C-alpha cells in the first residue's frame, strides 16, 4: 500500500478537524484518495487495524457529520471527476460523478455545457453532443451552500429553497457505488431492487448476500432528513441516501437532470409584521401552483443582516431594507410562459394586499441579474449569523451555532412558530429565524451570548424536538443528523427504533468503523 496517501495530522491539516458546524474534532491520520481503488485500499487498511473512519466532502455540513472524533479522516475532495453522461428512452439526461465534485462547479458546467469529456466513453461523448443541442437543463437540488460536494448532498439528503417544488436530493439519485467497511463494494440502482415489506436483500459486487430487516418506524409526514429512509417495499437505493456516512463510502453517483423552466422570476415580499407574512404564506400555498420556493426571514434576521452590512466589505452590495419592514417572504415562480408568470404576479399582488401587506413593498427579479441579487440577499442571512457566532466564539469557545432544522406538517405551522417565539421571549434569548416556510421548515437560530444562554438554548431545542415529533414532524429536515442532532433523533424515534437502525449499520459495518457518532451513539443499546 502506498503510504504517501495517508498523512499524519499535524499542524498542516488542522483545518480538516472542523466543518461549518463550528465544532472541532480529533484524528490521527488523513488521506485524500484520487481514485476508487485508493479508497478501497485505505478502507481495507483501516479495517484490518480497526481504525474508525470519518468521511469528508467539502466540510460545509452543519451537523458535525464530517468532524472526526478519532482515527482516520477520509477526505474525498480529490475524488472529484465527472465521468460520463447517458440518456434514457424518455429523454431524461443523467450524469455520473464522483462524490468530491462540487455543486457550484457542476451547476456551472451544466449551464455552460462545458464538460471535460476527454476521458469519457464514446457513448457518453455522443450523449454530450446531443445534450449541447437541447434546451437548457439543471440539477435541481439547491442547498444554500453551493461549495458543498455532491457526495455530501447525498449523505444528508440535502434540500434547498427549490425543494419546495422539486423535492430533495433523493429524488434525483439514480445510482450509487459504495465501498463498504471491509473494502467490498456495492452498486445500487433505482428501480432494480425493492424490499419485500420490510425485508431487504442486497448483493455486493463480490457476490456476498446481505439481508436486513428494516426498522419498523414510520417516517414523518413532512420534509425529512432524519435517520434512515425506510418504508414498506422501498427501493434499496433510498436506504443509502441520507445515511450520513454510516453505511458505506460513496465513490460514484449518477444524478438525473431536469429541463430548466423557460421563465424563472423571484419576488421578495416585505411585511410590516410577521403574522401578516404567515397568513400570506398560507394563502399562497393554497392558491398558486407555479411556486418553486417559499422562503421566510424574521425581523431579527433582517436586523443582523443590516448590522453585518455595515461591517463587512463583502456585503456592501446588499440592498437596504426599509426600516418599517419586519419580515420578508421570498417566492420563486417557475413556468414555461411569460403570461403565466404575469398572472402569478397578479395573484400574489392580490393576496398580498388582502394579507395586510402592500404590493408596492416587493422586489421583482425577472432575469439572472436580478435573481442573483435576491439570492445573494437570502444567502447573506445565514452567513451573517455565522459571522456573529464566530465573533462570540472568540470570547467563549463553547459557543457554537444552535440552529434548528425541524419541519412539521402543514396544519401545524402557525402553532410551532408561536411556540418558538413564546419560549425565546420567555427565556430572554437572542434569536433569528429564517427558512423554507413553504415546507413548514424554519431554521430557528438561538444566538447565545454566554454559556447560560447556550445551555438554555440546548434545553429548548430538546423541548421543541419532542413537540415537533408529537405533531408528526421531523427533527432534521435537510441538514442531516450528524453528531449534533443524534440525541434529537432519539427523541424522534425512541431508543427501540434507534436500536433497529444500529442493527442495519452493524450488518453492513460490523466493526462499527464508519462515521462513529453520526446518527446515533453505537454501543448504547436498551437492555
Amino acid at each position, binding site marked *: 500500500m502506498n503510504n504517501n496517501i495517508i498523512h499524519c495530522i499535524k499542524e498542516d491539516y488542522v483545518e480538516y478537524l472542523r466543518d461549518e458546524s463550528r465544532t472541532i474534532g480529533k484524528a490521527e491520520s488523513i488521506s485524500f484518495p484520487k481514485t476508487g481503488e485508493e479508497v478501497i485500499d485505505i478502507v481495507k487498511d483501516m479495517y484490518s487495524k480497526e481504525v474508525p473512519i470519518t468521511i469528508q466532502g467539502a466540510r460545509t455540513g452543519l451537523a458535525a457529520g464530517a468532524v472526526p472524533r478519532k482515527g482516520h479522516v477520509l477526505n474525498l475532495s480529490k475524488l472529484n471527476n465527472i465521468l460520463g453522461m447517458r440518456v434514457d428512452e424518455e429523454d431524461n439526461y443523467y450524469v455520473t460523478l464522483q462524490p468530491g465534485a462540487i455543486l457550484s462547479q457542476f451547476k456551472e458546467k451544466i449551464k*455552460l*455545457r*462545458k464538460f471535460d*469529456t476527454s476521458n469519457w466513453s464514446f457513448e457518453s461523448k455522443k450523449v*454530450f*453532443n446531443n445534450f*449541447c443541442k437541447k434546451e*437548457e437543463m439543471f440539477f435541481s437540488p439547491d442547498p444554500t451552500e453551493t461549495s458543498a460536494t455532491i457526495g455530501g448532498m447525498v449523505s444528508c439528503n440535502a434540500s434547498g429553497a427549490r425543494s419546495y417544488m422539486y423535492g430533495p436530493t433523493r429524488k434525483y439519485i439514480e445510482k450509487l457505488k459504495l465501498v463498504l467497511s471491509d473494502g467490498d463494494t456495492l452498486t445500487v440502482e433505482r428501480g432494480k431492487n425493492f424490499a419485500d415489506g420490510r425485508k431487504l436483500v442486497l448483493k455486493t459486487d463480490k457476490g456476498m448476500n446481505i439481508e436486513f430487516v428494516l426498522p419498523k418506524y414510520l417516517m414523518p409526514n413532512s420534509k425529512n432528513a432524519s435517520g434512515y429512509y425506510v418504508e414498506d417495499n422501498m427501493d434499496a437505493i433510498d436506504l443509502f441516501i441520507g445515511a450520513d456516512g454510516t453505511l458505506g463510502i460513496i465513490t460514484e453517483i449518477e444524478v438525473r437532470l431536469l429541463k430548466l423552466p423557460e421563465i424563472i422570476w423571484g*419576488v421578495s415580499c416585505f411585511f410590516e409584521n410577521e403574522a401578516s407574512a404567515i397568513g400570506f404564506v398560507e394563502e399562497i400555498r393554497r392558491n398558486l401552483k407555479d411556486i418553486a420556493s417559499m422562503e421566510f426571514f424574521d425581523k431579527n434576521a433582517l436586523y443582523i443582516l443590516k448590522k453585518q452590512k455595515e461591517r463587512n466589505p463583502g456585503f456592501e*452590495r446588499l*440592498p*437596504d431594507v426599509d426600516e418599517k419592514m419586519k419580515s420578508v417572504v421570498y417566492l420563486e415562480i417557475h413556468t414555461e410562459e411569460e403570461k403565466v408568470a*404575469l398572472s402569478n*404576479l*397578479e395573484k*400574489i*399582488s392580490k393576496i*398580498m394586499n388582502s394579507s395586510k401587506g402592500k*404590493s*408596492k*413593498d*416587493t*422586489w*421583482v*427579479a*425577472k*432575469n*439572472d*441579474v*436580478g435573481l442573483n*441579487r*435576491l439570492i445573494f440577499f437570502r444567502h447573506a442571512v445565514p452567513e451573517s449569523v455565522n459571522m456573529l457566532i464566530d465573533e462570540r466564539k472568540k470570547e467563549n469557545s463553547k459557543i457554537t451555532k444552535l440552529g434548528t432544522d425541524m419541519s412539521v406538517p402543514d396544519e401545524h405551522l402557525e402553532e410551532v412558530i408561536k411556540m418558538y417565539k413564546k419560549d425565546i421571549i420567555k427565556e430572554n434569548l437572542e434569536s433569528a429565524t429564517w427558512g423554507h416556510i413553504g415546507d413548514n421548515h424554519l431554521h430557528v437560530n438561538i444566538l447565545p451570548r454566554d454559556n447560560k444562554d447556550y445551555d438554555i438554548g440546548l434545553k429548548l431545542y430538546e423541548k421543541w424536538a419532542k413537540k415537533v415529533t408529537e405533531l408528526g414532524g421531523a427533527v432534521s429536515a435537510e441538514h442531516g443528523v450528524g453528531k449534533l442532532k443524534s440525541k434529537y433523533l432519539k427523541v424522534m424515534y425512541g431508543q427501540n427504533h434507534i436500536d433497529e437502525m444500529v442493527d442495519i449499520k452493524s450488518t453492513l459495518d460490523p466493526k462499527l468503523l464508519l462515521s462513529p457518532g453520526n446518527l446515533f451513539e453505537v454501543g448504547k443499546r436498551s437492555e
Partner: protein
Amino acid sequence: MKIVVCVKQVPSTNEVRLDPETNTIIRDGKQSVINPFDTYALEEGIKIKEKIQGEVIALSMGIPAAEKILRDAVSVGADRGMLLSDRSFAGADTLATAYTLSLGIRKISEVDLILCGKMAVDGDTAQIGPELAENLKIPHITNVSEIIEVSDNEITCRTITETGKRLVKTKTPVLLTVLKDINMPRLPSIDGVINSLDASVIVENAESLRANKSYIGLSGSPTQVVKTYIPERKNESIEIEGDSETKSEKINSVIKEVI
C-alpha cells in the same frame, strides 16, 4: 427637469461557448437585460426625479425586442420610453450609434440632462457618452461618482480623475456618464411591473427621425470588425522549477515583467 437615460439591451451573460462538433462560437442570447452599467444611470435619474420634479425618459437604439427593456425601465420609475429601431441602423459602431441617439434626443427636445452608464458589457468601449455629447454639442462629464446637487439649470457632481477626485459644477444641458456603485439600482415592485405593461414606448425609425442615411448603420460606421475569435486561454500553468534560489529568481523576473 427633463432627463433622458440612455440604455442598451445586452445579453444577460457574456459567456461564450464552442459547439463541440463544429467548433464554432455559440452565443446563448436567451435573456436580454438592461446593460448593468445603465441601471446605475437609470437609478440616478429616478432619484433626481424623486427629489426635484421631473420626467425621466428611457432611450434605446435596438431591435424591436428591445422595447422590453424600456418597459423594464418604466417598471422601476422611468415615465416613458423611446426606441429607435430600423433595419438601416444595423451594423452601427459607436459613432453611428451616437448620431442616431442624438436624433432621438433632438426629437424629445428640451432635454436638460442626459445620463449614460460608463460602458456596455458586450461592447465595453465606453465611447457613446462623449460621442453623443459631441453630436448634441453639449458639454459632458465622465466618471461621475456622485451627483451632489441638481437644480433646473445647474448640476454639481464629484468625478474620479487619474490622480484623485474633483468637484465640478456646470450649467445644463449636460451629459454625464456615471460609475458603477454610484447608487444601488432598485428592483421593480409588482406594481411597477404590472404598470409597465401599458406604459408608453414610442418607436421611431430612420424616416421619423429624418436621419441622414450616410451617418447611420453600417454606412455611418468608420470602424468595422474584420474578425472575432476566442482567445487562447492558457489552462495549464507554466511550472517554475529548480531549487529555492532558482525558483525565487525566476519568480522575481516574472513579476518584473508583469508589473
